[in-house]
C-alpha cells in the first residue's frame, strides 16, 4: 500500500469532510442533559475510510480530524476525550472488520460507538477523580447503540455506493 498522490488527495478530502461534519455537529444544541451524547456523525467518515482504505489511512484521517477539531472548537480538554475514545473505537473496529461482521458494518459501528463512550467515561473518571460518573455509563451505552446503529447504517449505504468508485479511482 504505497501512498500514491491519488490516495493522499482522497484522504485529504475525507479529512476535510470529517472535520466539516465535526464542526457543524458541534453547533447543534446537546440532545440531552447528559454530556457526551451526540450523533458522532464524523465517525461515518472514519469507518468509511476503514472499510474502503484500511486501518492505517483511517487512523491518519482520525488523528488529523480530532486534532484540528479541538483546535477549531478551542477546547484542548476535548482532545483527551476525543483521542482516547476515537482511538479505542477505531482499534476495535479494525479488529471487527476482519471478522464475518464485515458484512454488517452497522453492527461494527454500534460496538465501536459503545467502546468510544465507555472510554470517554473512563477518561472523565480519571480526570475528575469521581467514580460516581460511572453511573452515566448505562445512559451512554444506550446512546452508543442508537447513534452507532444510525451512523453505521450511513456508512453501510455509502460503502455500497462508493466503494467501487473509490477502488477504481485508486487504480
Amino acid at each position: 500500500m504505497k501512498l500514491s498522490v491519488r490516495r493522499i488527495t482522497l484522504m485529504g478530502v475525507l479529512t476535510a469532510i470529517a472535520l466539516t461534519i465535526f464542526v457543524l455537529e458541534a453547533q447543534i444544541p446537546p440532545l440531552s442533559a447528559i454530556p457526551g451524547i451526540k450523533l458522532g456523525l464524523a465517525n461515518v467518515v472514519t469507518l468509511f475510510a476503514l472499510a474502503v482504505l484500511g486501518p492505517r489511512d483511517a487512523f491518519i484521517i482520525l488523528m488529523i480530524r480530532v486534532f484540528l477539531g479541538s483546535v477549531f472548537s478551542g477546547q484542548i480538554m476535548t482532545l483527551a476525550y476525543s483521542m482516547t475514545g476515537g482511538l479505542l473505537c477505531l482499534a476495535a473496529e479494525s479488529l471487527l472488520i476482519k471478522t464475518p461482521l464485515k458484512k454488517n458494518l452497522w453492527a461494527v459501528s454500534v460496538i465501536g460507538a459503545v467502546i468510544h463512550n465507555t472510554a470517554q467515561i473512563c477518561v472523565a473518571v480519571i480526570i475528575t477523580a469521581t467514580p460516581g460518573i460511572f453511573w452515566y455509563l448505562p445512559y451512554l451505552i444506550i446512546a452508543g447503540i442508537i447513534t452507532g446503529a444510525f451512523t453505521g447504517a450511513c456508512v453501510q449505504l455509502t460503502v455500497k455506493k462508493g466503494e467501487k468508485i473509490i477502488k477504481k479511482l485508486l487504480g
Partner: protein
Amino acid sequence: MKNRHLIMIFALAALLCAAVILFRGGKAESGKTAEIIKDGEVVERIDLNAVDEPYDLKIESGGGYNIAHVESGAVSITEADCPDKVCIKQGKIIDASYPIVCLPHKLTVRIVSGDGGEIDAVTGR
C-alpha cells in the same frame, strides 16, 4: 451473522442498561444531600431538604469559578467561566441518577440519598 440476531443482541444490551437505570432510579430516597466535589474531594455538603430559600453558591476552582444555584431538592450550575458551559447546559439535577460535571474545573456536583455519609464499597458511592 444475521442482522436479526445482531439487533436482538443490541436490544438486549440496551434493555439491560435501562434496567440498571430504572433499578437505581426506583430506590426510595429519604434524604437528599448535594455534594460538591473538587478534584475528587468533597468540599461542600448541603442538605437539600433543609433549603427554604434558593441561594447561589460560588465555587472557586483551578483558576475559574462556577456558581451553583441551590434550591429545595435540586441543584444546578447557573454560571461558570469555563469555555464549554456543559455544566450549565445540563440544567437541574434532582436525584442521584447522574451528577453535573464541569471538566475544565474538575468539579462535580452530585446528589446522594440518605445521609450521604456512607460509601458503598462496591459502587464507590
